[in-house]
């Protein structure tokens, strides 16, 4: 996998009512090899502030990626992997799911909305369902607001 | 298998934290905190945790060196010592004892400082002794001695937790005295008011109840302003003023003109904030003042300290727990170096060289005639060397080529000397210019005592054998003294030296190595059953009554103008210590900060087309440096901050050597510079 590049200092833009979250998206290459396809699933105002990274397997998703992304200016982190039982490496997605579930608990204890972490386990890439899941996630994120403390 | 731990005191700052040095197979492998230590309470800062890393570095000086041609070459101890003894004797005979100067070390032990100053006075016959305290807290010593009769921190570090209000000014405490900042936040957790007054928005400002941001060099104005408000409101402690002080009327008259409006004009502080600070400080039962270089490193440093003394006395905040004036001393043993008389005008315990009784006492004890005229300070010594009046300089554990102002001038001065001897643990910019270099032992290789900022005498203990042929500093002077035919230097252990010190020094007379093994002792400790002194000036000041001083504000010597439109202020960073000789050889600390960066306000940076991490050229009337930019709004518009720890971007290339007339401290904190984006070579 190429070196992960996360741009520091992405500024939160938009007014309160039209807050456009910046999202760091990590998708497994087996359920969807084409990052562009994932990008266009998102509303344009969000897509232009987001980054997409392709992983060999959702298991490659480390808690550090999500934690660092939040600190670096992203408001949400999305992980798209294969449906349970369909992982190319048998159990990678289950490892990821477990790890990210523990992370979500830690975020909540630290006062960070666990809903900032969006986990989507999709079977043989279903555009319609995935698009809808992402849209719901983005709307929820708009309501939660930016990660960075305004003060 | 083997593993042991040796209890010592951290070699870095003046907090005086206890550490355990971990030793396996005769090598240092780590440090650990001391669980119930009165200062560090089971914690350490990152430097304390890394205090072992530089000790056995490959770079350590292991053999004596002397100059042959243009290079320094290794030699044996006898050759080096005899050569220095011969040259010193010759120079003394030809030019007189005052053509020789000594710089002592605020990092070396009390015993070593004592032996150096005894050597200078009894063997060479000069009072030209000084050390880096000149560059940091000399105004404290001068100012508080004048106001109270004693220049030391009045209260103790643990007492900060008993304060109801702590006002911190000119001290980036979390970064430079972390264990003291620890007490300040603990006090806050208990409900104390914390006021931070600093030209930069330092880290502690974010954990304060009130933050005031005055312009550089305006401290007398805002302090007088606070007193103006306190007096107008009748918040001052009339009983204390009447019973315990003198000269109030004159001071009161002077501060009458420092109205909040005038103070705002001078310093930029808004009247309502000044009033808020005055109210908090004056109305709290126990109010404590904490300060460091932001107050002292000015041409008005002594005035600044006198003003703080005025403020404390005005509100009766001296001589009781949790209050006082608390200058935080920088080095691990700068308090000790001062206590040991490594100063031109005093012997141990601040006993003056021009006092006949004192001189007789020491002359008798040492069996030597002693000089009675005060000598010159380090800043004057540099000038005298440049002028050719000072012929020889003997430096122990100091690096003036990085820590003194106006480095080009320092280089010219040191290069002009007939003899430059340097005793240190590493090569640095100063040793490079020396004729002879003696390898010294570090804190982990020797035994002795050090005195931390709150007058606390503590032990350093030997954990490993000296590296290479390095000797302990007192041993080197003792050998030199013997070669030069002097008596009174046949010490075999540091305890003997300490016993001699306490026999001549009333404030240390009750302290013994035995007591230090199990008791906390802060001087004054006059007798062996005296418990030591937590806070000073209880009941009466050292000089009797506390003296108010009427102080008028004066601007800094060099301010921003058309040619040099930025203010430069200098200081330190957390991860490195002073000139970096130890910390820049510590992997943990280098990893955090490998090089220098100058803090610049983002608006200024944008105007100059500078982005974060771009190289900038900063120049003053003295010199120029290239340094990376770090954009931060902790510095106000129009001000640049450069840390002085990094030789490749030496802040002191730019600073002005203009001095406080009384304390002789250079104005490190204010001068004028211009800033440009550095021209890229690509």
């Amino acid at each position, binding site marked *: 996998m190429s070196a992960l590049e996360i741009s520091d200092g992405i500024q939160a833009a938009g007014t309160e009512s039209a807050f456009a979250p910046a999202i760091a998206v990590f998708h497994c290459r087996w359920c969807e090899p084409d990052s562009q396809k994932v990008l266009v699933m998102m509303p344009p105002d969000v897509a232009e502030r987001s980054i997409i990274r392709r992983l060999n397997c959702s298991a490659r998703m480390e808690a*550090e990626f999500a934690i660092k992304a939040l600190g670096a200016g992203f408001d949400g982190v999305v992980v798209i992997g294969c449906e349970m039982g369909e992982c190319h490496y048998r159990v990678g997605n289950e490892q990821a799911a477990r790890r990210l579930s523990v992370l979500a608990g830690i975020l909540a204890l630290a006062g960070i909305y666990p809903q900032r972490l969006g986990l989507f386990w999709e079977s043989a890439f279903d555009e319609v369902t995935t698009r809808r899941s992402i849209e719901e996630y983005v709307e929820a994120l708009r309501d939660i607001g930016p990660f960075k403390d305004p003060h | 298998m083997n593993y042991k731990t040796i209890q010592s005191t951290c070699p870095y700052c003046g907090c005086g934290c206890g550490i355990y040095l971990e030793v396996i197979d005769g090598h240092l492998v780590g440090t650990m905190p*001391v669980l119930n230590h009165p200062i560090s309470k089971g914690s350490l800062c990152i430097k304390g945790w890394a205090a072992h890393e530089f000790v056995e570095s490959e770079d350590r000086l292991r053999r004596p060196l002397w100059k042959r041609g243009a290079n320094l070459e290794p030699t044996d101890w006898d050759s080096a010592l005899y050569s220095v003894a011969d040259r010193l004797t010759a120079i003394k005979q030809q030019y007189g004892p005052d053509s020789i100067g000594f710089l002592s070390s605020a990092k070396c032990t009390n015993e070593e400082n004592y032996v150096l100053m005894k050597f200078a006075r009894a063997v060479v016959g000069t009072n030209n002794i000084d050390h880096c305290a000149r560059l940091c807290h000399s105004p404290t010593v001068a100012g508080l001695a004048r106001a109270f009769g004693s220049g030391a921190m009045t209260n103790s570090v643990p007492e900060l937790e008993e304060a109801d209000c702590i006002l911190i000014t000119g001290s980036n405490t979390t970064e430079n005295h972390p264990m003291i900042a620890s007490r300040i*936040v603990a006090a806050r957790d208990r409900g104390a008011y914390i006021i931070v007054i600093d030209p930069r928005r330092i880290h502690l400002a974010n954990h304060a109840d009130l933050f005031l941001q005055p312009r550089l060099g305006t401290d007398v104005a805002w302090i007088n302003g606070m007193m103006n408000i306190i007096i107008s409101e009748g918040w001052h402690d009339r009983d204390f003023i009447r019973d315990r002080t003198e000269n109030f009327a004159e001071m009161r008259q002077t501060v009458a003109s420092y109205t909040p409006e005038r103070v705002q004009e001078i310093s930029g502080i808004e009247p309502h904030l000044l009033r808020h600070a005055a109210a908090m400080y004056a109305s709290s039962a126990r109010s404590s003042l904490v300060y460091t270089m932001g107050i002292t490193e000015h041409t008005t440093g002594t005035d600044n300290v006198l003003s703080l003394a005025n403020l404390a006395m005005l509100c009766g905040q001296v001589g009781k727990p949790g209050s006082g004036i608390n200058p935080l001393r920088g080095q691990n043993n700068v308090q000790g170096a001062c206590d040991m008389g490594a100063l031109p005008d005093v012997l141990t315990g601040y006993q003056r060289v021009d006092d006949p009784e004192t001189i007789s006492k020491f002359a008798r004890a040492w069996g030597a005639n002693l000089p009675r005229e005060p000598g010159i300070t380090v800043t004057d010594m540099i000038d005298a060397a440049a002028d050719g009046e000072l012929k020889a300089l003997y430096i122990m554990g100091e690096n003036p080529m990085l820590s003194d102002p106006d480095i080009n001038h320092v280089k010219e001065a040191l290069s002009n000397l007939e003899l430059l001897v340097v005793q240190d643990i590493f090569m640095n910019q100063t040793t490079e210019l020396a004729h002879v270099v003696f390898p010294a032992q570090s804190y982990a290789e020797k035994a002795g005592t050090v005195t931390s900022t709150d007058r606390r005498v503590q032990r350093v203990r030997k954990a490993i054998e000296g590296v290479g042929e390095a000797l302990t500093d007192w041993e080197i002077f003792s050998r030199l003294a013997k070669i030069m035919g002097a008596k009174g230097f046949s010490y075999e252990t540091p305890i003997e030296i300490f016993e001699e010190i306490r026999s001549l020094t009333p404030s240390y007379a009750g302290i013994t190595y035995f007591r230090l093994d199990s008791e906390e002792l802060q001087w004054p400790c006059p007798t062996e059953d005296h418990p030591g002194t937590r806070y000073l000036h209880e009941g009466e000041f050292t000089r009797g009554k506390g003296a108010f001083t009427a102080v008028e504000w004066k601007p800094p010597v060099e301010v921003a103008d058309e040619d040099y439109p930025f203010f430069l202020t200098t200081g330190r960073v957390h991860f490195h210590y002073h000139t970096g000789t130890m910390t820049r050889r510590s992997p943990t600390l280098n990893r955090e900060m490998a090089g220098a960066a100058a803090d610049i306000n983002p608006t200024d940076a944008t105007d100059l087309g500078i982005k974060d991490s771009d190289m900038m050229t900063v120049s003053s009337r003295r010199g120029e440096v290239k340094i990376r930019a770090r954009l931060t709004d902790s510095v106000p518009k129009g001000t640049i901050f450069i840390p002085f720890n990094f030789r490749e971007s030496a802040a002191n290339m730019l600073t002005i050597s203009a001095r406080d007339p009384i304390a002789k401290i250079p104005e490190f904190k204010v001068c004028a510079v211009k800033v440009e984006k550095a021209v890229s070579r690509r």
Partner: protein
Amino acid sequence: MQEEVEDTREQQARRIARELIASGGMDGILGLLEIRDHQVPHLFTEVDELEGLDVSGRYPIAAIAERLLRKFETGRIGVIARGCDERHLIELEKKKSVDMSRLKLIGLACTIEEARECHCVRPYPREVQIGRSVGNVDYLDHEALSKLINMDIAERRRFWTDIFDRCIKCYGCRNVCPLCNCEDCRLEEARWVRVGEIPPEYPSFHLIRAFHMADKCVGCFACERACPMGIPVGKLHQLIKEDLKSVYGYQAGRDVEEKSPLLLAPGVETKGKGGRG
């Protein structure tokens, strides 16, 4: 009464240590040496050193044991271990950082006072040779913990953001923790936590550590005691531990065979059978 128990613990410890050293099977006994009213970790190798052997101080002994085993390739040492020390060693064993066959644990039971000071719930090791176990207790600071739990999420955010902002990156929390023994610590990598900043990068520094400790923390609170700025890091770890316990029934330091919920045993705890080729 208490005086008697204290003396007995020291005497017991010295007797056991003397026997082990005299028998020649051990290269040393790792315990605390009393010097000048302080107790410091020390490897006792000679019988006449044992006069100074003390048991009332607290240091992360497991960290020193692990370092010694790493530095010296052969040899066995006895370790005077409290409950927490033993739990540390169990977790280190899970990581394969210590070879327990090179250690002989000499179990030390804590007194009620010691348990209270440490906010302990299990102040005794499995086998007690020194002192008498006081059984399970609960000295957790429930007041502080419930305050944290009962805050709403925005308050919690404000609380932790403000308090982490005090951090001076001393790494004390990590340095005293026996479980933090990675050669390449992630917190030191500029990629994850920007270097040279005070306070350190948020949320990276503290939450990466919290995540790493999630399945390893045994609740000794040494981290919190080592923090100079009063940051209740131990309490955050405690809350995370309680989460893992209630969701997965997992407790660190209980049993070397007890696998972390973060390490799913393929085929046993997972459903995955195979994917697309």
